């Protein structure tokens, strides 16, 4: 029986090893090597890449990445929870419709959707054009290339990742739970905080982690919607592997990010 199980697990283990463990080891090795002149890596082995990360410039970017990702997660939670609750309380037929609507954006590439936001937000974009034409504003609003635009892009892009797990949690809450709470003297608002939120916690946790991890590593959104001051750690990594041709430093960056995220999530568990 045990042998059989081992065989069944083998494909998954193999994929996991080849696609996850091996690349991670390569990244670790790269981060400890020196920069090649035309990209790539060279001997000798060194800790220099990690020492460079202590620079306030990079620490600042790390800090901002956590801050933006955290804020995006919080906004997703605030916006996504009521939506998930609404869907979970709808009739079964409506639920399928609403869930499909939530997932429709996934039918198009994230890149295309992010470009769409650029067309909406830029100075000659739809929003500014309409506002200028109606005389509500005299000058175009600076909607693009700032933290707000990045935040908007992230919340827009990752909201479904939060709605779906939270919905799954909320859907399991029987109406009789709410009645029991009322029966025992809880006002609706108390029932919400004392019963609904605790019971939805697993979904809120899973959703938040999904959104947070996706946001903290992102480079596309800040690259397209952010300005020069909105660089996130993903952009630094991307830059090291392309323009800067400093693979070891890029590798060190991504490993530090991974370590910090793991620490962050672990501390959340405690």
């Amino acid at each position: 029986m045990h042998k059989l199980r081992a065989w069944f697990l083998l494909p998954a283990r193999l994929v996991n090893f080849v696609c996850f463990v091996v690349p991670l080891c390569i990244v670790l090795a790269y981060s400890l090597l020196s920069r090649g002149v035309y990209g790539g890596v060279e001997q000798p082995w060194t800790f220099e890449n990690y020492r460079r990360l202590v620079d306030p410039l990079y620490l600042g970017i790390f800090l901002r990445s956590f801050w933006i990702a955290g804020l995006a997660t919080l906004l997703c939670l605030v916006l996504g929870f009521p939506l998930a609750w609404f869907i979970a309380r709808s009739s079964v037929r409506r639920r399928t419709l609403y869930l499909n609507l939530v997932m429709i954006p996934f039918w198009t590439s994230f890149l295309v959707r992010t470009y769409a936001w650029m067309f909406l937000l830029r100075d000659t974009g739809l929003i500014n054009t309409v506002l200028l034409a109606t005389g509500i504003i005299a000058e175009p609003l600076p909607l693009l290339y700032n933290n707000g635009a990045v935040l908007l892009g992230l919340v827009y892009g990752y909201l479904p990742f939060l709605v779906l797990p939270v919905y799954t949690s909320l859907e399991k809450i029987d109406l009789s739970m709410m009645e029991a709470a009322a029966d025992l003297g809880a006002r609706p608002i108390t029932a919400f905080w004392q019963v609904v939120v605790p019971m939805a916690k697993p979904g809120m946790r899973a959703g938040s982690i999904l959104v947070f991890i996706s946001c903290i590593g992102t480079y596309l959104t800040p690259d397209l919607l952010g300005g020069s001051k909105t660089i996130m750690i993903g952009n630094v990594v991307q830059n090291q592997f392309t323009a800067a041709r400093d693979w070891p430093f890029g590798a060190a960056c991504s490993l530090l990010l991974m370590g910090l995220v793991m620490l962050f999530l672990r501390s959340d568990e405690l």
Partner: protein
Amino acid sequence: MAAILELRGVSRHYPGHRAVHNVSLEVESGAFYSILGPSGCGKTTTLRLIAGFDEPTSGDILLDGKPLQNVPAFERPVNTVFQRYALFPHLTVEGNVEFGLRRRGVRDCKTKVAEALEMVHLTGKEKRMPSQLSGGEQQRVALARSLVLEPRVLLLDEPLSALDPALRKSVRAELKALQRRTGITFVFITHDQEEALSLSDRIAVMNKGEVEQIGSPQDIYVRPATPFVATFLGDVNWIDDASKLGVRPEATRIGRESPGNGARIESGQVRQSVFLGHCFHVETETSRGRIVAEAAQPFAAGENVFVWWHAADEMRFHA
């Protein structure tokens, strides 16, 4: 004694469906009051109207003489034991029992919780999660959670139906003892006539959203007001075709000789004898149709017999 709970012409109509229609009843303080009926008869809707989870379309519900209209569920001094218990899965046994006390801002929760748990024999399981408890234990938590609030009326929605049959009888006895000890008025919803008969001081029998009869268990069993009540509470031998005259099998005797006294006697032929454990039900074919009699011994199929009963045991209905 005064009525603690009164329903006056209460109806709950849905579009195209009268879930509850013109229900009037009075529950005396300290009573064990059952609402009995088949599924879909409106008994659970009635309970939900009393609890405040639903509003009547017409009629009044009075608690201690005061109308409950516009009093939200969370302010009504009644508590409910739900059919599936509806324990909060994220709270411990203690947390569940405390829930209502905390909402009232009671400071000395611990003693009350301990007392309530002792009452339902769950001392020592305070820190368990509901998922770690058996069905019977979960139900006792649900009871403790409601009883700890000392409600004016405790509503129980088929609390025994989710338990396995072996457990049901012992829990039934416990429930009755608990009700006596606490003196709290119980309104007990059930579709099980045996449960209702054995537990209740008074029973309201419901059918198709309406109350068919209200009375003591003996009353409704021996003197059912309608053919429905008669058949719902037990077996009936219909002596005529129009369901106007019936007699219960246990009031029907059987023998090979005619008793020759003042009883109503029919002659017939045995169809079969069914062993029920404590007795046999002997089915006979008579000129009045099929009549079942209770007997200590079986009779052979085809035997010629007499069945008889006393006029006092006859149940008469007016169409």
